[in-house]
């Protein structure tokens, strides 16, 4: 894949199948960008968790709402945006799933996994009024010799955010 910036976006239905669709789409982009198996796993899992978050928490599983997925590939990194049509949330208010009292919780680990698996992670107010997850993974060094894996810019918010 060349160094020209690339942009892909897709609007997904609020349904379980969208989770797999989003993961598969981003995995193809990641593989084409030269990410190895381990990074592809982490990117795929993070996309999956982002879309699950939008499906369940953001859109409250309401089928009339949409999930907006965008992928930007720059010379330095792969940036993923997941935007829902909910009411948004504050990252600081998300409970820590590693806290003793939350260890046996049956939910609430998605944000934690995205943070752990991606190089950059943030949640910003989206243009829909919902939450927009913005996360990025630096490209492998052989595709990114100019940065030497350092000094990449912060994940940019999507247009209109």
């Amino acid at each position, binding site marked *: 894949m060349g160094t020209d910036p690339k942009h892909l976006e897709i609007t997904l239905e609020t349904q379980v199948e969208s989770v797999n669709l989003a993961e598969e789409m981003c995995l193809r982009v990641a593989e084409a960008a030269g990410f190895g198996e381990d990074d592809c796993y982490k990117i795929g899992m993070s996309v999956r*968790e982002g879309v*699950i978050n939008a499906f369940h928490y953001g859109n409250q599983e309401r089928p009339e709402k949409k999930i907006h997925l965008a992928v930007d590939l720059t010379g330095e990194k792969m940036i993923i945006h997941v935007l829902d049509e909910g009411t948004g949330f504050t990252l600081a208010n998300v409970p820590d799933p590693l806290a003793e009292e939350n260890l*046996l919780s049956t939910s609430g680990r*998605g944000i934690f996994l995205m943070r752990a698996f991606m190089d950059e992670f943030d949640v910003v107010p989206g243009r829909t009024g919902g939450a927009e997850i913005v996360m990025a993974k630096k490209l492998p060094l052989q595709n990114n010799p100019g940065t030497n894996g350092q000094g990449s810019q912060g994940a940019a918010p999507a247009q209109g955010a």
Partner: protein
Amino acid sequence: MALRATHRDAGPSTVVDLSGKITLGEGSALLRKTVRGLLDEKRTHIVLNLADVDYIDSSGIGELVSAYTTVKNRGGDLKLLHLTKKVHDLLQLTKLYTVFEVYTEERAALNSFQQAAPPAGA
């Protein structure tokens, strides 16, 4: 690959052989249905064999925790067997490795029940 689940009795205990992905939707639902079905049959000493499970998302992790607490609340116990590297790493990352009893040998997992109380309802 969609999750598949079969189970076999090993004395008073039951081994559930899982293969595929434990993820949001059918995978998590099948795990829930399987464990609840065993509890309905008073099979409360359960080993989940995850040797062929190579992918679990947060929904699947939640379902494992739910299965664990449900079995515990019924007076039984649920243990994990043969974790793949990805699942092992995920449980370590989420600190659940300290919650579940994890075994690398089926015999050891089954013997661990014998050192504990007999199954509830037995």
